[in-house]
């Protein structure tokens, strides 16, 4: 379990192929995974769960797009020609994607895997809490699977299980409290509630780890920016998710006992529900995008072979986004009866939150400027991210403006906007991050050619699906409808074909990963020449990451990493800049 903190070239080289076991092999059998407290294994288990959720959510999306391929009912209408099944599909697509894919994806997979190693620590601060968090995720997921299965069974056999969900992922009252809704609001809200707890526990773990486990030499402003982003994310998880918890509890009480706090028929206030919901769910948008931005800061600096530009601005903008993100929730409620004073204030604050996001974009571009850009797969995804995030972010400003929001509210313009942020940005960053840390996670390289081809397919498919939805939206196509007037047909058909292309691209990515696991060549410890601490230990890392706590220096100083052809990776030259102190010798 040698680590690369020993500056002797021979040892360094030996460290690339450790003879002893790593975290994947040190113990075998399913049980050794299920009860593991190792943050890396928990991260991998999350990866399986999250990818399953992505598959489910993607499947729903493809079904929706297939239904929309022509204006008349295609295959989702039932006997009454009502579109219950369509309603169930878009609700579950949203709920599964948001609660089970986008929110946990980066923090729970890549964060869990990388955060402790980046801190030079053996594990997160509370490993048991970490495992509990995973099991809560699995349990919450089971609730959603139940809702889905029961819904399908109901449709297929005309049973009347509590299944299916047709409220939209937001569970708006009175959709979710109405007598007419036969759908499984209670199981679904229980699921989301439990997933929320899982998210809170991850946040608590990360905040405490970052506070107490940083190694010698790593001051706050020498932390990798990914950690800053995760810290900002954790703040949101801690401060916002409990409000979702209480909202969902109230909704369960509303539905099971009829407490009537949100139900207008019982003297309740449905707008208050939206305040509750968006107090969590708007900050949750930043739970989704902040970690992605953290990945970007790592990727762009490493693959431009250049120190990140404006480190402190990027770090502080993460915190600024986390805090400002709490002040803009009302922009989801412009047409829901919110007072005009609140709408105006929220509109203004929405513009304010664009500033730190723009700071990040400008700093990334400045980092790339005159850099020695290497077009590896992660970097390609990073560049997609910058482009698509700019589109998604700027259309967000359109929507933040009251006068524009009202006419395009609940149209495909909104759908396109948040898919540019959620899929175009967050998922591109997630894929980029997966490709970036893949060699570290599994000790295998992947086929660069196929990963680049698949990334291009994904990019084309994505834009084909969603760019045209901006136009459809401005033409007045409302969201959440299963049928539409003929003049929208072209838009929908292009979008549907794009969705298929995107689906093919995602399967190519999956195939590429599986191929890498089976046939990929052994990964060197540092294939990219990055200088954060996880690249200082072998690939895959040993069980406790480091035999001794390493000393951190500037995470974006790449000067001492040199390409070594025999290894196919970068090797540290052993020289140390003044602030960095070697250990051992």
């Amino acid at each position: 379990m040698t680590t690369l903190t020993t500056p002797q070239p021979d040892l360094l080289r030996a460290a690339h192929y450790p003879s002893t076991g790593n975290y994947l092999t040190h113990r075998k059998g399913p049980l050794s995974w299920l009860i593991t407290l190792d943050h890396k294994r928990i991260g991998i288990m999350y990866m399986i769960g999250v990818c399953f959720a992505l598959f489910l959510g993607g499947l729903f999306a493809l079904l929706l797009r297939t239904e929309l391929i022509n204006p008349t009912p295609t295959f989702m209408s039932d006997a009454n020609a009502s579109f219950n099944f369509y309603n169930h599909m878009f609700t579950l697509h949203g709920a599964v994607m948001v609660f089970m894919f986008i929110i946990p994806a980066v923090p729970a997979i890549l964060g869990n895997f990388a955060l402790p190693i980046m801190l030079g620590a053996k594990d997160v601060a509370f490993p048991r809490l970490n495992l509990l968090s995973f099991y809560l995720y699995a349990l919450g997921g089971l609730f959603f699977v139940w809702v889905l299965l029961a819904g399908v069974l109901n449709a297929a056999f005309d049973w009347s299980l509590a299944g299916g969900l047709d409220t939209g992922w937001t569970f708006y009252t009175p959709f979710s409290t109405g007598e007419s809704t036969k759908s499984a609001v209670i199981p679904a809200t229980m699921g989301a509630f439990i997933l929320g707890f899982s998210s809170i526990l991850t946040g608590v773990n990360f905040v405490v780890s970052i506070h107490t486990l940083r190694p010698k030499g790593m001051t706050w402003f020498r932390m990798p920016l990914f950690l800053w982003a995760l810290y900002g994310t954790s703040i949101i998880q801690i401060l916002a998710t409990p409000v979702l918890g209480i909202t969902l509890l109230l909704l369960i009480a509303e539905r099971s006992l009829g407490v009537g706090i949100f139900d207008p028929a019982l003297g309740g206030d449905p707008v208050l529900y939206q305040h509750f919901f968006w107090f969590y769910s708007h900050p949750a948008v930043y739970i989704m995008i902040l970690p992605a931005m953290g990945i970007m800061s790592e990727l762009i600096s490493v693959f431009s072979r250049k120190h990140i530009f404006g480190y402190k601005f990027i770090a502080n903008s993460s915190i600024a986004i986390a805090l400002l993100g709490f002040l803009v929730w009302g922009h989801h409620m412009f047409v829901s009866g919110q007072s005009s004073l609140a709408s105006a204030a929220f509109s203004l604050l929405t513009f304010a939150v664009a500033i730190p996001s723009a700071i990040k974009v400008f700093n990334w571009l400045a980092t790339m400027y005159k850099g020695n850009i290497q077009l590896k797969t992660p970097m390609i995804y990073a560049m997609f991210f910058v482009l698509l995030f700019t589109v998604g972010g700027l259309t967000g400003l359109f929507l933040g403006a009251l006068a524009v929001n009202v006419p395009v509210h609940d149209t495909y313009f909104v759908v396109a906007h948040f898919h540019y942020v959620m899929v175009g940005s967050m998922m591109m960053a997630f894929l980029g991050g997966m490709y970036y840390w893949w060699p570290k996670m599994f000790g295998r390289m992947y086929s660069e050619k196929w990963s680049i081809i698949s990334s291009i397919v994904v990019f084309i498919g994505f834009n084909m699906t969603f760019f045209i939805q901006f136009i459809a939206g401005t033409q007045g196509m409302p969201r959440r409808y299963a049928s539409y007037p003929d003049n929208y047909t072209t838009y929908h058909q292009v979008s549907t074909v794009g969705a298929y292309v995107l689906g093919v691209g995602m399967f190519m990515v999956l195939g590429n990963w599986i191929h890498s696991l089976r046939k990929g060549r052994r990964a060197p410890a540092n294939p990219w020449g990055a200088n954060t601490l996880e690249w200082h230990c072998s690939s895959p890392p040993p069980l406790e990451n480091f035999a001794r706590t390493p000393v951190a220096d500037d995470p974006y100083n790449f000067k001492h990493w040199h390409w070594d052809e025999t290894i196919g990776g970068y090797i540290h030259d052993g020289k140390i800049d003044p602030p960095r102190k070697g250990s051992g010798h």
Partner: protein
Amino acid sequence: MSQSSEHHDTAGHEGFHPHVVSPRVLLTVFGILLVLTMLTVAVTKIDLGKLNVWIALIIAVAKAGVVGLYFMHLRYDRPFHGIILVVSLMFVALFIGIALMDSDAYQPNLQGKPAASEAMP
């Protein structure tokens, strides 16, 4: 291993040299809490209009303050723990403040309509 153990800028060793709160302080705090409880009940008997709520809240905050400072050791603890508490209260205040302000403003739209028509479109 030992050489890298004393370094964290946040991780000192307060854990080992804790402040032991003296019985006198504990009992005084208890006494203050009892007195404030009686006070808050007593104040209700007097009609001060809108002021009543605020007095009750101020007394509650005072009670919470002594519990936090002495029972929860905030007075002797890392300042960061106090910051966490204050920040979380600020976010609660933000949430309540805006929801209250807004609901106050849209209330006329909710009132006076038959319940069923209040449903969102």
